[in-house]
């Protein structure tokens, strides 16, 4: 067997066979799984189960024909049966949606998650306070007791004109509230037989100059601090719903008929693709593909490069280097090691790429990734890998200990951060002048090009060709320079050189 390949084979086997590699390679997908599956479960622990009261000062004075007040409506909305029914409906909805996308197993998992997320049903009493109750004094009760043991959770003040339009009241007083009530009663009596527009017109006529929209009041709500948003959101919704339906009734409309009129079925958009159609995720998913491409390139290049540098340093500090050099030339050794680590990086790339493609296929998003893009990713991988491998081999050869490599590594790491900075501007605008230029500057070029390739706006073919030509040329230059540094560096012990010294080595011999 060719000796360069012998070196490459040993390099590959001794790297891939270590526990470090196996763990390191699996850690990334594991983190992804944890992030996607476990973290939401941990974060979205079930909400606290509140046991307490919601106090309502209803100044609207409204009653429906059956004599039910807003407080009664709210109480109904918080009745255990209603809460249970809502819960079931929500579960069914989620289940239907998930089932469509993920299948039976996914739906069941989602349902379990949801069940957990919704937690146990709270136990909430809705209490009516007298209209003239002192708000400041009632607020104090929000500070007393516990939200889990019957303490007051919220204090709601429904304004006099919340249901029936009236003159907005600047000041709060028993008298004004009194007047408001009168006004409402009048309005309520006037309303039947008239349509909504007439009622508004009449109201506008009554209170000349007041804008009609401002005539409706709302409610004020004071709540205990640190209440879960899964309590707050439903409260807000239930209150607005109660007031809305009261207004509709007060205006003499049929709530159900209005609801039917207002409700327009708005299905999700369906994307039509070559492989079939699916529900749109509501946005451009290309950004994830760009991120995926860049991560793939980045991780495989980084891992391969790191291993390369470490093994070169190890061979030096083990003093096995000179033994090797008695059998093969430094060039053969470096080439063999780079090829071996290319195998390592390629394995990582293949593992992650396969996981990615399988996942996309599973969710029917495979069309986001063109086969030609995958081909380009592999081409750019080779360019990026050889560029960084040459750098890492040179750095590894120049130092004796891993710690000494830090100062030489810093500029390399800074170059490797650039793709992350470029990520957003390049995905937003893959064909801007900036993106075009970045795609042609050697160390960053392969990263920039895969980010651009993943965008919606196709990158002109000539730019790919130019980036590849520039890439190949820069790889040749980098390997040539690295070989020179390597040849001198591998037998150099002692004080680690700086970049100036390395450049001198390149010019030497």
């Amino acid at each position, binding site marked *: *067997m060719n*000796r360069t390949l*012998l*070196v490459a084979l*040993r390099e590959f086997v*001794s790297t891939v066979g*270590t526990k470090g590699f196996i763990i390191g390679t699996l850690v990334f997908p594991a983190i992804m799984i944890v992030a996607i599956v476990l973290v939401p479960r941990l974060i979205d622990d079930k909400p606290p189960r509140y046991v307490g009261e919601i106090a309502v000062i209803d100044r609207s004075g409204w009653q429906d024909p059956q004599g039910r007040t807003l407080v009664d409506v709210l109480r109904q909305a918080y009745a255990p049966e209603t809460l249970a029914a809502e819960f079931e409906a929500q579960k069914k909805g989620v289940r239907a949606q998930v089932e469509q996308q993920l299948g039976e197993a996914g739906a069941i998992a989602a349902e379990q998650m949801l069940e957990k997320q919704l937690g146990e049903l709270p136990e909430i009493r809705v209490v009516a306070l007298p209209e003239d109750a002192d708000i400041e004094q009632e607020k104090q009760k929000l500070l007393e007791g516990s939200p889990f043991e019957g303490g007051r959770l919220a204090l709601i003040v429904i304004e006099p004109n919340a249901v029936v339009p009236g003159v907005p009241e600047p000041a709060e007083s028993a008298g004004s509230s009194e007047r408001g009530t009168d006004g409402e009663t009048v309005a309520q009596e006037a309303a039947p037989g008239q349509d909504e527009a007439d009622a508004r017109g009449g109201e506008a006529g009554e209170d000349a100059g007041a804008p009609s929209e401002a005539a409706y009041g709302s409610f004020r709500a004071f709540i205990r601090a640190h209440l879960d948003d899964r309590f707050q959101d439903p409260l807000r919704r239930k209150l607005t719903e109660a007031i809305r339906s009261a207004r509709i009734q007060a205006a003499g409309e049929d709530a159900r008929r209005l609801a039917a009129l207002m409700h327009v079925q708005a299905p999700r958009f369906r994307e039509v693709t070559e492989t079939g159609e699916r529900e749109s995720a509501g946005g451009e998913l290309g950004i994830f593909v760009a991120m995926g491409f860049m991560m793939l390139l980045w991780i495989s290049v980084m891992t391969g490069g790191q291993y390369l540098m470490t093994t070169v340093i*190890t*061979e030096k500090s*083990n*003093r*096995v*280097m*000179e*033994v*090797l*050099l*008695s*059998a*093969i*030339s430094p060039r053969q050794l470096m080439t063999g090691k780079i090829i071996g680590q290319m195998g390592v990086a390629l394995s990582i790339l293949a593992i992650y790429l396969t996981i990615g493609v399988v996942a996309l296929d599973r969710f029917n998003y495979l069309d986001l990734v063109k086969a030609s893009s995958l081909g380009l990713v592999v081409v750019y991988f080779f360019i990026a890998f050889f560029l960084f491998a040459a750098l890492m081999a040179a750095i590894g050869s120049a130092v004796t200990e891993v710690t000494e490599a830090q100062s030489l590594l810093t500029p390399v790491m800074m170059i490797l951060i650039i793709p992350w900075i470029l990520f957003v501007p390049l995905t937003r605008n893959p064909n801007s002048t900036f993106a075009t230029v970045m795609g042609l500057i050697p160390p960053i070029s392969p990263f920039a090009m895969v980010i651009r390739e993943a965008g919606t706006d196709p990158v002109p073919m000539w730019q790919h060709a130019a980036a590849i030509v520039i890439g190949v040329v820069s790889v040749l230059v980098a390997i040539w320079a690295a070989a020179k540094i390597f040849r*001198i560096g591998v*037998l*150099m*012990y*002692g004080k680690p050189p700086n970049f100036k010294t390395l450049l001198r080595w390149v010019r030497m*011999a």
Partner: protein
Amino acid sequence: MSDAIIMERVTKTFGEKVAVDGLDLRVRAGGLYGFIGPNGAGKTTTIRMIMSIIFPDAGRLSVLGRASAVESKDRIGYLPEERGVYRKMRVGRFLEYMARLKGHPPGSELKRKIRDWLERVDLAAEERKRCEELSKGMQQKVQFIACVLHEPELLILDEPFSGLDPVNMRLMRDLFLEQHERGATIIFSTHVMHQAEQLCDHIVMIDRGHKVLDDSLEAIRARFAPRAIQVDLLDDGDGDALAAIEGVRIVERIDGMLVLNLDDRSDPVEVMRRAVDRARVRRIELRQPTLEDVFIALVREGSGRSEAEIRAEIRGASMQEVGA
């Protein structure tokens, strides 16, 4: 016999420092050569140039009939001064890898050879152990096997005994004498001169990049015939009486004995007779110069440095060999 290595006016500088300066050297095929000289003399640089690990700035070099060792690496076995093993590799696999890098075909033949060698150096049980589990002496033996597995025609050993205990030192010596008997040319470099004296049939002395001596051990002994007499007196008399003998240049006291250094014209036998006449002598003999003495004499002649200075340089093995 032909020459295994020919070096003509070979020069190598590292920055300011001239490591090897216009070295001429011929190593006879089948010879057992000792490269001696203090640390930093240029031995390792010379050897690395022979191995084509580094290249001379000037001069011509031929190894086993080829212009450079690059073309004949497979026929050379090299045990460098800076030697190591892959710590995580198993001993058997390491030896197999090294042999294959040297062009040995893989297969059961190679495996059998490795086992035989490990048995000979008493490491048969270690074949499946990782190299890092071996002691330093054991690792050194493994490295020696690695450089002879492919049965090289030329064997270069740079400080092969450093760090070995006496038992293993003897084992190693026997092993490479055996390689010599097989017909291999051996170059052996050391700063411990008496080792070379015990082993080699030809000595090359290097000091500060220059060759100061290149001759067979026999010829050296003949050339540096004893010019000193060593006397052990019965009573603790001083050497005044002896210093007065005609032909005695100076009397020194070394290790409790009196050493009479003779001038160039005197006859040692005549001086001994007179010494016995003048003092109560327990023991008297010709003092055979060691390689170290020869080295000092040569270097003193050439550079004018003092004897103590040179001796300190040879023995003070602390100075690091300048790396390539």
